[in-house]
């Protein structure tokens, strides 16, 4: 599992949600850049599911270095079908039942799943962010990565396999 400490996450920086939100965008965009879909979409659809604390900046959308746009929208806990409408699922604080449901819905679809808050990183999500004040790190659930329909570059997986790294 990987814990990542961004270089700019200095303790003296104002630890507010807005700064964290910007950092979250950068980490998420990094993860996306190392992820490959079976059929590369011309534009990536990012769905924010459930209530989130740091998705404000993310919801404004972004563009990858390659020029591919990433469009974000909020999805209700039971609204739509995330498996077909989303390429990336950013999962907020869902109830246990909702989360299990979402996992079931996403199963079999090429969707990159990132959960905002799951310290154990054990329930079906591929990437688990760990936001501690301005510091944003992530863990990888390799089982979920293997089962998912997307391919994650070994460069990121290698980072995840690194031992003894802590902020």
């Amino acid at each position, binding site marked *: 599992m990987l814990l*990542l*400490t961004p270089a700019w996450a200095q303790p003296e920086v104002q630890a507010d949600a807005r700064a964290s939100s910007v950092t979250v965008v950068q980490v998420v965009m*990094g993860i996306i*850049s190392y992820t490959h879909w079976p059929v590369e979409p011309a534009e990536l659809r990012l769905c924010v599911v459930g209530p989130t604390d740091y998705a404000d900046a993310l919801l404004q959308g972004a563009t990858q270095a390659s020029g591919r746009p990433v469009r974000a929208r909020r999805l209700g806990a039971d609204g739509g079908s995330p498996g077909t409408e989303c390429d990336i699922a950013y999962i907020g604080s869902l109830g246990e039942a909702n989360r299990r449901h979402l996992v079931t819905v996403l199963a079999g679809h090429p969707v990159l799943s990132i959960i905002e808050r799951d310290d154990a990183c054990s329930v079906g999500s591929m990437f688990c962010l760990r936001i501690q004040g301005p510091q944003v790190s992530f863990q990888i659930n390799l089982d979920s990565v293997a089962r998912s329909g997307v391919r994650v570059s070994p*460069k990121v997986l290698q980072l995840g396999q690194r031992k003894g790294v802590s902020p």
Partner: protein
Amino acid sequence: MTRPAEAERAPRPTLRRVLRRAHLGVTLLAVTLASLTLTVAGFIALRAYANHNLHLIATSMSYTAEAAVVFKDRAAAEEGLALIASPEEIADVSIVDGEGRVFAQWQRPADRSLFDLERHLGKLAFTSPVILPITHDGVEIATIQLRGSAGGLLRFLALGLAVVLVCLGLSAMGALILSHYLQNGIVGPLQGLAKVAHAVRRERAFAQRVPPAAIAELNDLGDDFNALLGELEAWQARLQRENASLAHQASHDSLTGLPNRAVFEARLDEAMQEAAGTDSRVGVLFLDSDRFKETNDRLGHAAGDAVLATVAARLRDGLRPTDLAARLGGDEFAVLLAPLREVADAVRIADDILASLEAPIPLPGGDSVVASLSIGVAVFPDHAEDATTLLHQADAAMYLAKRLQPGGRRLAGTGDTPSEDREIPIASHL
């Protein structure tokens, strides 16, 4: 024998030294040149490979560190750099982000004694660090700057130097052994030649010959020298024969084969000196033909010569090997009797000679003639102390005999008139 003064001042180097110096020089030059060329070529080739290797390492590092740079994970980046760099010939490596700040770096620990040397050599060998961009999604996100360490090059140079030194040593030994063999092949025959030449010059040992040599030119030289020696030997032998012949001709009468007056006088001196030392006597008989001129005139020169030769032969035959008969000139003969015990012995020998002359001498024309000689006898030391006087005494006695009793003999020191030892003259049958 004179020798140039400068040769005395500066001793000439021996062939051995010249050979050894030439061999060593050529070998050391060749080995040094070859080694230097190989080392320089090897250094250049190795530098090219090392540069290529640095690029490969930088590529590998950029691949490894890419994700760490994207996620700004300095620890992961530095760990990746260290993992790749530490076993390689890397001096230092750093990742500089897009804003020109050093994001991560690694430097080889400076705990090695050769570190400074390696660093300087590295600067010399790798003029500039390898700079490679780290790209992500086609965008350059950082650059990796890599500086090579010259450890490998240093080891190569050290090994090259060691090999050069070992090769130099081995080659020097080889050259010395080679020059030793060559020297045996060259110096040995030359020394033999010099020895023979020296022996010939000092001892006239013309019979010596130079042994054959293994090297063709030296062998030819030896053969020519031997041929020259052969000619010299033949010359020398001929010269000696001619000298001996000339000496014999100079000291002997050609008609009778008897020694001449000079030989007789020399032998007389020797005999008298010897007799003086041993207290013994030396007798001299002076003989003169009484009617030789008459014979010569009447019967011809050939008859005269036959008479002289026969008289000489009879004189010689009647003497001991230690005695000497000589022809003093014309029809004069002398006999040296040494050693002689008593004066009477000389007188007796004179009588024997007179008796031997009684037989007729056959002449070339078929006639025969009887020679008549008068003999004067003188004995050292009884009649004279020196050779001249002794001869004179014998001569005088002979004249006295010729006047008073031709064909007889007379002892010196017995007065002018015929005395008690006057002998009856032997009758002439002519």
